[in-house]
């Protein structure tokens, strides 16, 4: 089998900016984001659809970008952790994680932030059960999650 495969042209909006790229069909969304668009805030943790470090928003919904082909995202709106802060000011969810020590090493944080943003867009005043369910696909090996829960409750209370 020949390894010369046609590249597929894609048009996406990434963090509000239109972007035209060409990818091999096998390119993962996270590879496109990190290696072609140089947005390295999105992390690859397990690379097996488990840990959620690679979570981004695809048309507003959180997905594991290690388990989405870039071609599936054609025409979509992609939001990564780099899209949260505006004009040098942290997003309220980022503020809440910082203020409540919702992170230690920080590796899982980009993914958790994106799942939290999605949760609060869907349920601005989430119950604890809704919070736990929303971040069940994001693994953190440092915090024990308690401060993450505090951060999310604080972000919700702050109205964001």
């Amino acid at each position, binding site marked *: *089998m020949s*390894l010369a*495969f*046609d590249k*597929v042209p894609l048009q996406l909006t990434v963090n509000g900016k239109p972007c035209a790229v060409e990818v*091999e*069909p*096998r390119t*993962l969304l996270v*590879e496109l984001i990190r290696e072609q668009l140089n947005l390295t805030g999105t992390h690859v943790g397990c*690379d*097996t*659809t*488990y840990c*959620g470090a690679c*979570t981004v928003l*695809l048309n507003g*919904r*959180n*997905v*594991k970008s*290690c*388990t*989405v*082909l870039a*071609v*599936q995202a*054609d025409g979509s709106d992609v939001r990564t952790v780099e899209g949260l802060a505006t004009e040098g000011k942290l997003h309220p969810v980022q503020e809440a994680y910082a203020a409540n020590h919702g992170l230690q090493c920080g590796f899982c944080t980009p993914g958790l932030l994106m*799942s939290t943003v*999605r949760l609060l867009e869907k349920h601005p005043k989430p119950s604890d*059960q809704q919070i*736990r*369910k*929303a971040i*069940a*696909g*994001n*693994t953190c090996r440092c915090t024990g999650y308690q401060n993450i829960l505090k951060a999310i409750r604080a972000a919700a209370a702050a109205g964001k």
Partner: protein
Amino acid sequence: MSPYPFHYHRAHTLAEAVTLLAQLGGEGQLLAGGQSLIPLMKLRLARPGALVDLNFVPGLSAIDEHSGEIRMGAMARHAALEDSELVARVPILHDCAAGIADSQVRNMGTIGGSVAEADPSGDWVAVLLTLGAQVRCTGPQGERIMPVSDFVTDAYTTMLGPAEIVQEIRVKLPPAKSGGAFIAFKRCASVYASASAAVQLTLGDGDICRDIHIALGCVGLTAVVPIAAQDALRGKPVSAKSIENAADAAMAAAEPQSDMRGSADYKRVLVRAVVKRAIDIAARRARGERVEAGHEYVARV
């Protein structure tokens, strides 16, 4: 990790997808949500020469009511089913949709992909069996529709022909005084269940169980229908004793294998527990109570 290289074909209509699959012969595989296929391709356990992408076919993800049925398009995402008020009218469907893996996987994964994959640990088939669901397929010879019990023939094996596609899943709205529940026990959110039980039952006068359908997930090559467990309840009053008898019979019908999710003996005990709970909740729902059910983790949420 990267999949082996493959050719990419984007279908814009269902007919185009069928034609592409037929042209590609054995080389082509369908891409739905990709939440099972992409991990398999990354691990290089799957090596399709070409993918036919269904994500850009309009209309394949509709969730509609028609002739007393809920019709769920094959590309309906688990999350869309979880959020659907129509689907919530059949609580066992909502139990299933709302707890598959985690929110990220539910946002991509589809009911059609899950049913067509026929993974013995998948959640949907067991649930759909208890509702007598129908699978509507389209292929080069046209359309056909068959019960899910006929559709899944073995582990990872279905009646689908080489160029045939699951188009829709149909579920009849259950009658009055019918209730269902799905209980799946798993080690954490993102993994397959260790064992699961789907129960749909209909009550008659005096709390008599008029009809009952039970299916067990993850404890056989396909979902197991424990006939003796159904017989232990059908035509009898729903009581602690009859539920106990049914759960014992279900445990005897399970054929689990020891694996990283637990030993076969452990899973048999688990089957008894989830069946008992699912029957109890199904009966309470049939009486009109609002009770929560769904996926449960070792660490409770």
